[in-house]
């Protein structure tokens, strides 16, 4: 036993000696889980996007790192026709795709790649439409099949997107992960070889990193794309060490086994902030947590009742107890980081007397019975819905409203609430593209009243403003319309707005230029390591 131990110790010493002079800069990121696959248009989870679109692929336009501002990427410039129906993109020249084990590109990126990437999701008769069980949840979720009439090219470096109706958020949509550009040449070759699913498993993109190896639940390994169009990344190798438990991720970060980690435990934040080896980055998330009233059901069809509940719940107490300092009280349905946020909106103060008066006015002086649905899972915008519902229950009891708390398994919860079975429901939203439309129209518009609009609230004066804003590409005009819409929203009170949660990313001190992404993603291009 003893010689063996000595051998082990010796081996360990040799390891350290040999590991020291590693020349390549390797950044290790402790991620939370395995990606579902390597084609971002097939999936919706941030975990998958971090591993794919944000490292391997580019889009025509992208969000400037650390902001929600759209900047040129694979498209150098673009124009929108006066009627807002035709978008013309001028593509960047000399962009190289990755050379991988299974594929060596023979040409640069061009219009065919754009056509392939979109038509695969749009045209039901496209040879790739059904490959890998293509559900294209995001493409559908953003209503692209109805918006897009066609995607065509006029020459190898000019692409036209023709719309059925004007849609101002279109440009922002094209910056989203599902709009990543894949290689048409690779796809053609795999189609001929009869191995179409390979396109989605062994990715080829134009992005700053290329995939080298993936071992499910263990590692994802990338190396810098040597010919990246915007210049080679500062780090040579990038490793995702998949570590599902947040306490273990933190331990790895402390031990120096990774340099960046995601989703810290709220309880560890204090210790992280004090740790001299760690920088704790924070940013207000692009999200909102809310309590929606089912306006189709009595008594929530009465504005006074909805207002009364807004007065009756002590918001600050919830922020303090549930978000533990990682939340900011919400008064609007959109977070303050999104343009057109209306800071002039006055939130309902906590005033149980006023609430009682309003209930009496609505003929409910004796109170009433109802339910609050609380989701069974932790979400970025709501760390503990169950506990939150209990606090609301206690507050509402004080004004005579008797609340029963209801919960279901997550999938069931989403399904039943979409069908409108609830009376009051806790839910939330994380933004996709930084456009106000992505919150207001999706969550409160009439078209969504049988789906994502959980208040099932369809109010003509409000909806008209949103539709007008959708059809104009003039940002100043859109801003004015959205600001007005937020005033109406507050007055009509289809929701009790709760909070925008704060996102934290702990990184080690040797990491340079890591910027927190407002969409919650991880971007490693532009990041460097100090010696």
């Amino acid at each position: 036993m003893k010689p063996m131990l000595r051998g082990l110790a010796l081996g360990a010493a040799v390891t350290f000696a040999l590991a020291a002079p590693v020349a390549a800069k390797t950044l290790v990121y402790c991620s939370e889980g395995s990606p579902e696959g390597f084609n971002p248009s097939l999936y919706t989870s941030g975990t998958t996007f971090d591993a794919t679109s944000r490292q391997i692929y580019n889009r025509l336009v992208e969000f400037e790192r650390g902001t929600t501002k759209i900047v040129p990427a694979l498209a150098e410039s673009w124009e929108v026709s006066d009627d807002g129906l035709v978008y013309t993109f001028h593509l960047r020249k000399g962009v190289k795709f990755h050379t991988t084990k299974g594929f060596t590109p023979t040409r640069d990126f061009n219009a065919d790649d754009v056509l392939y990437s979109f038509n695969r999701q749009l045209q039901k008769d496209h040879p790739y439409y059904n490959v890998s069980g293509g559900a294209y949840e995001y493409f559908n979720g953003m209503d692209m099949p109805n918006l897009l009439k066609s995607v065509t090219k006029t020459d190898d470096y000019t692409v036209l997107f023709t719309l059925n109706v004007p849609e101002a958020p279109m440009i922002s949509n094209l910056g989203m992960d599902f709009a990543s550009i894949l290689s048409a040449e690779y796809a053609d070759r795999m189609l001929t070889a009869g191995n179409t699913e390979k396109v989605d498993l062994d990715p080829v993109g134009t992005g700053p990193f290329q995939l080298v190896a993936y071992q499910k639940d263990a590692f994802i390994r990338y190396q810098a794309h040597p010919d990246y169009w915007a210049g080679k990344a500062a780090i040579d190798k990038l490793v995702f060490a998949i570590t599902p438990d947040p306490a273990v991720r933190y331990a790895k970060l402390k031990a120096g086994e990774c340099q960046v980690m995601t989703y810290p435990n709220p309880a560890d934040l204090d210790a992280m902030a004090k740790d001299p080896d760690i920088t704790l980055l924070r940013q207000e998330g692009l999200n909102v947590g809310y309590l929606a009233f089912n306006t189709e059901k009595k008594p929530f069809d009465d504005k006074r009742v909805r207002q009364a509940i807004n007065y009756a719940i002590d918001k600050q107490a919830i922020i303090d107890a549930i978000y533990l300092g990682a939340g900011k009280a919400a008064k609007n349905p959109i977070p303050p980081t999104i343009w057109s946020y209306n800071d002039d909106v006055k939130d309902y103060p906590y005033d149980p007397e006023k609430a009682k008066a309003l209930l009496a006015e609505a003929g409910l002086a004796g109170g009433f019975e109802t339910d609050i649905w609380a989701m069974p899972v932790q979400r970025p915008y709501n760390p503990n819905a169950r506990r939150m519902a209990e606090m609301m229950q206690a507050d509402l009891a004080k004004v005579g409203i008797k609340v029963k708390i209801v919960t279901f398994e997550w999938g069931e919860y989403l399904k039943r609430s979409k069908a409108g079975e609830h009376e009051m429901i806790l839910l939330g939203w994380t933004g996709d593209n930084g456009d106000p439309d992505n919150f207001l129209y999706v969550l409160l518009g009439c078209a969504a009243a049988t789906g994502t609009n959980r208040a099932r609230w369809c109010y003509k004066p409000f909806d008209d403003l949103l539709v007008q804003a959708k059809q104009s590409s003039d940002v100043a005009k859109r801003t004015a319309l959205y600001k007005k819409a937020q005033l109406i929203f507050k007055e009509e009170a289809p929701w009790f707005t709760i909070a925008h949660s704060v996102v934290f990313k702990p990184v080690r001190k040797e990491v340079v230029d890591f910027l927190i992404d407002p969409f919650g993603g991880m971007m490693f291009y532009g990041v460097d390591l100090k010696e």
Partner: protein
Amino acid sequence: MLQFLLRRVSLVIPTFFGVTLLTFALIRLIPGDPIELLAGERSLTPERHAEMKARLGLDKPMLVQYGIYIVDVFQGDLGKSIVTREPVLSEFSTLFPATIELSICALILALAVGLPAGILAAVRRGSVFDHSVMGLSLTGYSMPIFWWGLLLILLFSVDLGWTPVSGRISALFWIEPVTGFMLIDTLLADEPGAFTSAVRHLILPSIVLGTIPLAVIARMTRSSMLEVLGEDYVRTARAKGVSPLQVVAVHALRNALIPVITVIGLQVGVLLSGAILTETIFAWPGIGKWLIESIARRDYPSVQGGVLLVATVVITVNLIVDLLYGFINPRIRHAR
């Protein structure tokens, strides 16, 4: 012998059917819709939802779905994961070696410590050693795995820096999986230091996973040993002047081991279920974590296939154990 073998194997077939039926029914009985879960807050239109459902074959009556599933299973097809769209069998076979490697190391640890501890405790019955072994094994047996794992990580990896926190190998080594067993692959890869790194990564998870089997084996060995040591033939051997070491090692141990082997066989099930938690703590890419995730996502084919395969392993190991002590002890072989 052949008859004994056939009898045991014939019992396995209904067990397999039971397992397929149970997992198939249970995963569908708990509420939740895999398609809804994939879409999250975003939700799909009802048409799109129906289209997906049809594509996955979830629109057919339950009995028909089960029939299709069973026919496929007999053809060796366990279906494709709803989430990753990869064949269940290939996902399982990439992950399973990690679980086996960890389980074997944990079992070796449990045997290497548990057997001698149990024997010594029996021989020195009532001594301080005996009491400490019994006390510690009771503690080990009732230790919550999650807490125990985190405790070891904080002490040995973060404070002392002796062992790595988690994973199977340092992120600096890029080892190509050949066999899927990291210890073998690192030797094949011929990268200096990789093997040691793999060994160091195995230490803590093996301790955590091995703790409960170790405790069970130590206690079982002790009580079985005590029983045998009280038998007449042992007293006779002693009276004949056989050395105490020989009495214990040759005469007593062989008979005492029979119940211990049964327990070891049963520990395979314990190891595989303990692996679920251990793997989650140590970010160990095995089937435990994969199964948990598949259940949470209502990934029906993965759950069904995974449980069936795990059940196969447990049943097979127990069958081998049965045959093994039939072999050691002829009385069992000939009984009825």
